[in-house]
């Protein structure tokens, strides 16, 4: 069935394959142990490992948590998930409102600066006009 030489000590790879197939068949519900034990009875090292594998299969059965525990933890996780999602949404809303507020302040500051700039320009132009008129009056007074 497997590529093991029954008259010599089996090589490592062949034995690894045999053991892997043996445990997979146990997990699939097929116990090949008695047949394999007969087949490899000249190799106590092999039969010992097969027996041990079957013992592990019998001993290491799945341990299941109680239904109460599963339901209670499931409920806790659901609540925690909802709390986290809510706080993430709140954080994102807060971020959004902070961004809007900041953009309003920046917009108002820019508008104020623009108005101030305009006023200064008008005042400067007005002052320059007065200076020009005054200079022209001085010139005409000097000519007279």
């Amino acid at each position, binding site marked *: 069935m497997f590529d093991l030489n029954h008259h010599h000590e089996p090589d*490592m790879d062949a*034995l*690894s*394959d045999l*053991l*892997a197939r043996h*445990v*997979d068949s146990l*997990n699939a519900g097929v116990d090949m142990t008695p047949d394999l034990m007969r087949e490899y009875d000249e190799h106590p090292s092999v039969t*010992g*490992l097969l027996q*041990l*594998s079957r*013992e*592990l*299969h*019998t*001993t*290491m*059965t*799945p*341990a*299941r*948590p109680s239904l109460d*525990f*599963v339901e209670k*933890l*499931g409920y*806790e*996780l*659901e609540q*925690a*998930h*909802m709390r*986290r*999602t809510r706080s993430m949404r709140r954080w994102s809303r807060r971020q959004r409102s902070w961004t809007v507020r900041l953009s309003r302040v920046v917009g108002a500051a820019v508008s104020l600066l623009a108005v101030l700039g305009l006023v200064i320009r008008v005042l400067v132009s007005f002052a320059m006009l007065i200076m020009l008129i005054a200079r022209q009056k001085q010139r005409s007074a000097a000519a007279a």
Partner: protein
Amino acid sequence: VSDKRPLAGLDESELVRLAKSDALAFGELYLRYVDKIYSYIYYRTSNHHEAEDLTARVFHRALKHIPDYEDRGLPFSAWLYRIAHNLVVNWHRDRNRRQIIPLEGLVLRTLRRDGPDRVAERLDSAERLLSVIRGMPEDRQLLLILKYVDRLPNAEIGEIMGRSEGAIKSLYHRTLVALRDEMSRLYDQHDRDGDD
């Protein structure tokens, strides 16, 4: 069941993507893996209450970090087992609780078909076997749990443990040999003690 678990038909990567923002999807992942994670922790701690406590912590931690989870093609369970492994290692280190704790509850369930005289004998042998397993290196314990308790094929165990299928086969072989040697040493010692 499909009414109660509307996302049961979704494949794992889709479910993980949804679970980052959807409680129902996270709940489906939880239901798929809670038994396996509990089983793993139970075999590592041998204590029902600790297994429940650590299982709860695994899933709370997973919930906290799932937004940062990156799908790298590995099974989601590999990530959960890694969280469970880290918690179990910390549990052993912090509390120094490696002493043997009764396993009768677990072992007795597997022995119900035997008569009372055989039960005591096999209980002793099963406890001895499990206590030897608990003394083995972490990767070997994980391999035995994934192989015998979760009954996974080598390819999937390889994905969880980050090794090739061939490496898992070879590790399994070496683990069995080490376990057999340790068991024979224990039985020899037991016989010698009996003779004295």
